[in-house]
Every structure is written in C-alpha cells, then in structure tokens.
C-alpha cells in the first residue's frame, strides 16, 4: 500500500459504523427453557422450541428483557415502552425455523451514546442508533470431521441464545475511535453483568461498515462491510487496512464496490466475501407468535435502580477520592470486580494513595512481565494492602518491599505469607541505630553544614547512607526520629 496514512487523512474522511452482537448472560435461552451454556455436547441444550419443531412456540424470557433494558440504560439509550418482535426470513442450515426472531421497525431502545476521545484530545459522543433483542442462530461446522469435505455438521446449542444487537451511528472517524467505542461498550456490558463479552466464545461479535468521502463532502461514500473481526485489535487493523485500500482506489480515480469483505488477521488484509448485487430481502413482518413487548416506565425505573456505578462515573470518583491519575484510575477500573476489590482494600488501607501506587508499580509491572491478570495474581489486593500499610508505617523500606514482591511472585505466595516467612530482621534498637547515625554524620561534614544552612532535603541523603550501612534493615521511623534530633543539635 503506497498511500501514506497522513496523506489519506488530509484528503479523505473515514465514516465508520459498528454493529455489535452481545450474548446476554441469562440462565436460559430467549424463547425456551434450555440452558444458555457454552461448551456443552453438540445438540444437547435443545428442545422443540429452539429446534424450530413444527407447532412449537416462543415464550419470551423476562431475564433477557431485563438484561437488554439494563444494557440500554447503561448505554444512554431511550427504552421504548412498546417494542415489537419481527421475523427475519432467510434460509440457512443453522437457522432451524427458516427465520430469526428479531426486532425491526420498533426496537427495544433507541438514541444512545458512548463517549470517546479524539486524536486531538477532545471528547466526542458516538451516537448509538438502537439496541434490539434477537435470538442467535446455531453453528454450522464445515471443518474438523473426517467427512468434512462432503458434509457440514450443525450444532443447535447456540440457537436461541439471547442477543442484544447494538448499532452505532456512522459517526466514528478513525480506527482508534472504533477501538475506544468497543472497549467502552464491553466495559459497560461487563459492569452491568449482562454479558461476559468473551470474543473467543462468540459472546461479543462485531461487524464494521466503513466508507470514505473527500474532506468537506457531505454525501456518504459507498460503504463496505467488514466481517470476521474476532478481537478489537483486528477491528482496528482491518479498518486501517480498509481505509488505505479505499483511499488508494479513490485516489487512482476508481470507485468502491458495495460489498462484504472478510478480514484475514494472518495477512492483515480484507478480502471480498460477497458483493451486494443480490441484496438480501429479509421480508420482515411482525412475529405473530409473540405479543408486543411492553416495558412500562415503572419497570424501567425498577431496572434502572439495579444499575451499578458505571465505569466513567467510577473513574471520576476514584480520581477525586484517592488522588489517582486518569491512567491509574483506568487500570484499576478495567473490570468491575477489580474496581470493587480495590475500593474494598482502599477503604481499609492506611493510605489509599500508597495502595494505588503499590498496585500500579509493584503489582502491575510484575503481572505484565508474567503475562497474568490481576485476578490470577499470587499477591492479592488484600496482600498489597498489607504491603502498603507496612511501608506507610515505616516498617519496611521500599527496597525490602521490592524484594518481598519478587519473592512472593517466585514462590507464588501472597504478600502476608511471604512477609511472615521473611519478616526482615529489622534493627529497631535505638542505641545501635544511633551509633550508625553518628558514624554517618562524622563522615559527612559538608552535608551536615548544608542541612544546617536550611537545605532540609539533605535528610534523604543521610537516610540513604544509614540504610546502606544497615543493609536496609534499620527501621526507617527510628532512623528518621534520631537523625532529625541529632542534626538539630
């Protein structure tokens, strides 16, 4: 690709819209009582309803409604008191009824937004057109069987899994904004606990629409749909590729074909999957087997009352309450569990700020190096809190702290255990410490003079020297106390 990225952005503006399917984490499927569970024996979580047997009828799962409403509210959408299920008609072997029950012209919720930060650092609201409920299809398995060259197998366990389809406005301008939009969307779904958003298991799926138009032009260019985006990183990469590809085509005076393309992450390229010459006519019409879905204002209010504090609000509060930086707050609120855990410990800690620092410096660094998540860390947040308290009380130096953390990770022990085991033989005997201080003072007449002349920061130098002499074992609090006294004599 010859066109340079900044050349693209001066000439063209990208217009991106995202369609996200989120599987709702209900106990049972959307229209029947089968377990909503990933990973079971193929075709084991099925019944006449989700198999689309003749005569079987759907009954709407109210937990799915509750989750979809909750997700809508968290995404700032307006929930319609009346929404209508519709049949979307198409033939495919993993769609047993020959139609998917979805929502069409009257979706559950409309007009919401997610906030992202532009490249220029400004806040920008990306509009969400709608959130509607629908059932998932089954899974066609074209590979992995001895006779896969001749046969396709179908697993209908997934059929009837409740989905929320969330459609953005075409208001995303860059691959990075798309990445942010998705990251925030996932975070919100996780905070509200309506989905586990596991992309590998398909519980969050994303398709992107992207078109280019010359800067300043109002009319939209021809859009291309990109599928097979199995991670947010791939979304970003595929969009970057697609924008350059389209810019190059347009730059050479060509046109863009309206089509669906597949992303190949191995090659970092997109390929034509099907052209829209024969656009699908889904022949939507209201689902006669279901009554209109009514979610009264009272019910909406009751569901809203169960919403947890959402990530943005939590970050703002953590920054204000604990003096964290925006970056630290973001790391500590990456998941609701993590944020809750941090808050629990922060409330108990002698210095929440110190706890935050230790978590971010000592803990996160080592986790990153070991490639494990905080949730799997040998040192828990409760353990980190003990470490923070010990430092805060001056019972251990930062050097010892680092060593203890190293040992905890090596031996896969939590901090309290390693502390008990290796509790440093601290020198707290003031006579012994006094002797060391006297020696340091005697050896550093120049620094003493500076100190006495008012350069009180020199205290750090003396502490350092004494710690060095004691091999880090002198109790810092005792050192400090005696040192200040001696130096003021």
């Amino acid at each position, binding site marked *: 690709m010859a066109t340079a990225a900044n050349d693209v952005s001066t000439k063209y503006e990208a217009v991106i819209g995202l369609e996200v399917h989120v599987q709702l984490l209900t106990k049972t499927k959307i229209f029947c009582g089968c377990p909503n569970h990933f990973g079971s024996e193929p075709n084991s979580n099925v019944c006449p309803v989700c198999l689309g047997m003749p*005569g*079987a009828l759907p009954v709407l799962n109210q937990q799915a409604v509750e989750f979809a409403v909750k997700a809508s509210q968290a995404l700032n959408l307006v929930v319609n008191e009346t929404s209508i299920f519709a049949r979307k008609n198409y033939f495919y072997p993993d769609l047993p009824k020959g139609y998917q029950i979805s929502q069409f012209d009257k979706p559950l919720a409309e007009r919401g937004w997610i906030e992202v930060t532009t490249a220029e650092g400004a806040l920008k609201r990306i509009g969400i057109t709608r959130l509607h409920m629908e059932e998932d299809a089954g899974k066609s398995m074209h590979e992995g069987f001895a006779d896969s060259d001749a046969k396709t197998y179908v697993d209908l366990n997934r059929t009837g899994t409740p989905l929320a389809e969330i459609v953005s406005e075409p208001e995303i301008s860059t691959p990075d904004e798309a990445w942010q939009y998705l990251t925030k969307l996932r975070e919100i779904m996780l905070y509200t606990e309506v989905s586990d958003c596991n992309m590998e298991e398909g519980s969050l799926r994303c398709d992107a629409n992207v078109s280019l138009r010359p800067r300043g032009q109002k009319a939209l260019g021809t859009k291309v749909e990109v599928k097979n985006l199995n991670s947010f990183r791939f979304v970003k990469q595929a969009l970057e590729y697609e924008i350059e590809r389209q810019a190059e085509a347009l730059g050479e005076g060509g046109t863009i074909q309206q089509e669906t393309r597949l992303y190949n992450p191995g090659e970092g390229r997109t390929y034509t999957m099907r052209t829209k010459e024969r656009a699908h006519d889904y022949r939507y019409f209201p689902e*006669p*087997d279901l*009554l209109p879905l009514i979610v009264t204002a009272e019910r909406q209010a009751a569901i809203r009352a169960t919403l947890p504090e959402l990530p943005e609000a939590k970050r703002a509060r953590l920054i204000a309450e604990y003096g964290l930086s925006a970056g630290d707050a973001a790391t500590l609120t990456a998941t609701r569990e993590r944020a809750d855990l941090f808050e629990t410990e922060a409330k108990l800690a002698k210095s929440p700020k110190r706890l935050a620092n230790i978590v971010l410096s000592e803990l996160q660094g080592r986790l990153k190096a070991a490639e494990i998540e905080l949730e799997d860390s040998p040192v828990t947040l409760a353990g980190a809190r003990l470490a923070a308290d010990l430092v805060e009380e001056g019972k251990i130096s930062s050097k010892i702290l680092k060593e203890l953390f190293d040992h905890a990770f090596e031996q896969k022990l939590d901090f309290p255990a390693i502390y008990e085991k290796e509790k440093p033989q601290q020198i707290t005997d003031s006579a012994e410490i006094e002797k060391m201080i006297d020696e340091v003072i005697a050896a550093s007449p120049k620094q003493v003079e500076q100190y006495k002349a008012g350069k009180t920061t020199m205290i750090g130098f003396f502490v350092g020297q004494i710690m060095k002499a004691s091999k880090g074992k002198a109790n810092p609090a005792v050192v400090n106390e005696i040192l200040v006294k001696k130096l003021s004599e």
Partner: protein
Amino acid sequence: MNLDLLTIEEARGLVQSREVSATALTEAHLARIAEKDGEIGAFLTVTREPALAKAAAIDRLAEKGDPLPPLAGVPVALKDVLMTRGVRTTAGSKFLDHFVAPYDATAVSRLEAAGAISLGKLNCDEFAMGSSNENSAFKPVRNPRDTTRVPGGSSGGAAAAVAAGFAVATLGSDTGGSIRQPAAFCGVVGMLPTYGRVSRYGLIAFASSLDHVGPLTRTVKDAALLLEVIAGRDAQDSTSADVPVAAYSAECGRDVKGLRIGIPREYFAEGLDAEIRAAIERKLDALRGLGCEIVSVSLPHTEYAIPVYYIVATAEASANLARFDGVRYTSRAEHAKTLAEMYRLSRSEGFGAEVKRRILLGTYVLSAGYYDAYYRKAQQVRTLLTRDFQNVFTNVDAVITPVTPTAAFKLGEKTGDPMEMYLSDIYTVTANLVGVPGISLPCGTNKEGLPLGIQILGKHFDEATVLRLAHAVEQVK
C-alpha cells in the same frame, strides 16, 4: 349402541356405569374404521395399540368405582396437524411422511388427561391449506353423507370421522373456516373458539394469527364439553389468553329469551344458495318464537375479507413453512449439489401445488416494494373488519350467518379453479381475521339430502352465549 349417534355424555355414562367397557367401545370404533374407512379415507394413522392400552386403564379405574375424568373412555381422533408424542404426525404432507412428533400439543395432552381415547390421526389438506381435503398429499377424504362429494376442508377427515361413526368427537383446526365448513358439509357441529382461548402449542402452524384449535362433535353440548377441557391459558403459548373458562356445557339448555341476534345483510347477498337461505330463515323464525330479537345489521367491509385473508394467511404461512427446507425432517432431495439446490429441490418435491402457490403468494406480499401495498394494507383492513364487529356487538349478542354458499360439492369440481375454491370460505374467514368465536351446526338438508349449516358468531371470549344460542338452534325443529 348406535355408533353414528353416540354422544360424549352417553359414551362416558356407559363406561362409568360399566354397561359397556372402554375397551369394548374402543374396539367397536376400531372395527368400524377398519370396515368403512377404506371408502372414506378419514384416517392417516390408526393408533390401535395405545388406544386399547388407554381403554384398559380407564376400565381399571371404572372397576374400582372411582369417579372418572370428564372424557373417560370417549373415543376421539385428532387432525394430523396436532403434534402427538411418539405418533406419526404428517400435516397431510409428504414432507412429514415419516415424522414422529417428539411432544404432545397442549390441546392433545389436555384431552388425554381428561381420559379421552385417541384412535389416531385424521386426514386433512396439506398443512391445512384447502377447502375440500383434496390437497392431502396422501388421499382425498370422501363425504360420508355422499361419497361422490368432498367433506370440506381442511379438517375434512375430522368432520368425516364424526359423521361416519369413527369417533365420538375430533379435534380440528380452523384458519379460515377449516372446522366450520367441513362440519357444515358433513352435517356435524364444529366450533371455532376465540383466538387465544385454546392453546396453539403443538398445532403445526399454517397462519399463526389466524389458527385456532377446536372440536368437531355430533351435538352442541358435546362441543361445549370438549371445549371445557381444552380451553384456558397455556404458558407455552404467548398468545393464549388468561380469561376464565366458563362451564360451557351448563349453557346448553339455558333460555335464549331476550337475546338480540344480528343478521348481517352482506352475508345474505347474491351467491347464497336459496335452500340454505330458506333453512336459516326457518331457524330464525323459530328463534323469534323463543323470544329472541332478530335485527338486521351491517358489516360493511365484508367484501374485503377474502383478499385480506389470503394476504395475511399466506404471508404468515411463507415463514411458518420455511422450516421445511430439507435440512431436517424426512424430505430431502437426494441429488442436490449445492445448498441452494438442496433447498430448491427438497421444497419442490416435498410440497404440493396448493402449498407452493400459497408460499409464493405470501413471499410476494412481504417482499420489498410490495409490503406496504399488500401486507400493511391488509392489516389496516383487518382492523376495519374488527371495528365492524365491535360496532355490531354493541347492539347485538350474536350474529347468525350461513357457513358456506352451497352444500358439499363434488370431488374434482373446483380443483381447477383456485379462486372459486377460495370463495367457498367467504362466510368463515372474517371470524379468523377478527378472532371472534363461532360455531357451525346442522340446519337441515337440501332436496338432494345433503346437510346444510348455520353459523353463529359471538363476542370475543363469549363462547357461553354462542353455545347457549347454538343449543337452542339445534333443539328447534
């Protein structure tokens, strides 16, 4: 014991008093089927063994002297669009020739629980699409009153079985007249409950917003007894209503004095057979004698009912029948090379001509560019039809109309002209579009000795008045 005239009450009475055992009753009916059904063609599947096992169980109950459930020992049969666990269920289609249902329809399990003995599955037009039972993929049904004539459709087997003495009562389904019209042709009683009154769970769908399950019986009271058993809210059907079920059988025999009955002029216009008109007028005179007030009313949008019906019904059918795609069930084309070809061949081979015609029509009216002109417009007119009935029912308690324009026609007489066939439903489709309850009951015979029918329509969920009036109509001579 005259099997042609036996009623539910009589059958149950015989079993309860142990005058006749349920086993003997079942055997007698099975023998009648074996003897006569070769000529009639009402049954697609006879479930002899399970029927006798059930009869034996009922007899054991009767021997103990325990009180028996309401339909104990009553031989019944089921239209083959109702799912019956472990029993072949075909919907009259090649597609389901070897399909064994994995569960029972709600109406079926309620009948079973009430002690009824099912003798088997009844012939019908393929997927309940037809007015003469000539669209069955297996065989036509002949009218027991005149075997050169059709029994009506699509519940032709269900009506014929009652008329021929094969079962005391049957369950049918009615999407545009499919219970009432064959009841009229065969001289039996056929009831259309209010939409939502009887669960559709397990009824193989033709048109979901128009489909009703209902009884075919020899008397109005039998229809009431059967309805009491199958009616009522079912959590498995979201469109089933939570409206209390009255003691319908107690309505039979109640005084009808003071009831106001509407006669919609649009239903007595050109095209109605003179003998049917005269037969209905005789009944109306009799009702006047019983103190009913007969008033002329208007249902002004009636002329649109047939086109609206064929748009709504086919649209829904086109989706409901999409599941028959060759991927599952028994009809898959063998030589298809691609997925598209598999669908095309399987569906071309598996469906009969009428079903294909309706799928095509339904697909067309839902297509981009045609939806507004056909489907949406039809739904708007459906609302107007509903309003017609609401208006009339502010003034009257029930409406009386013909069931069919003519008596039973000959086999083959209308198969060449689908439009003429569709028009034979002209008096029945509106009740399905509006969702009101109705009943078709015998109203004498014509010069050729063929049965004629009369239809009573009532307010939503007011089956009580419909049955009370129907019983009075039945009793007057």
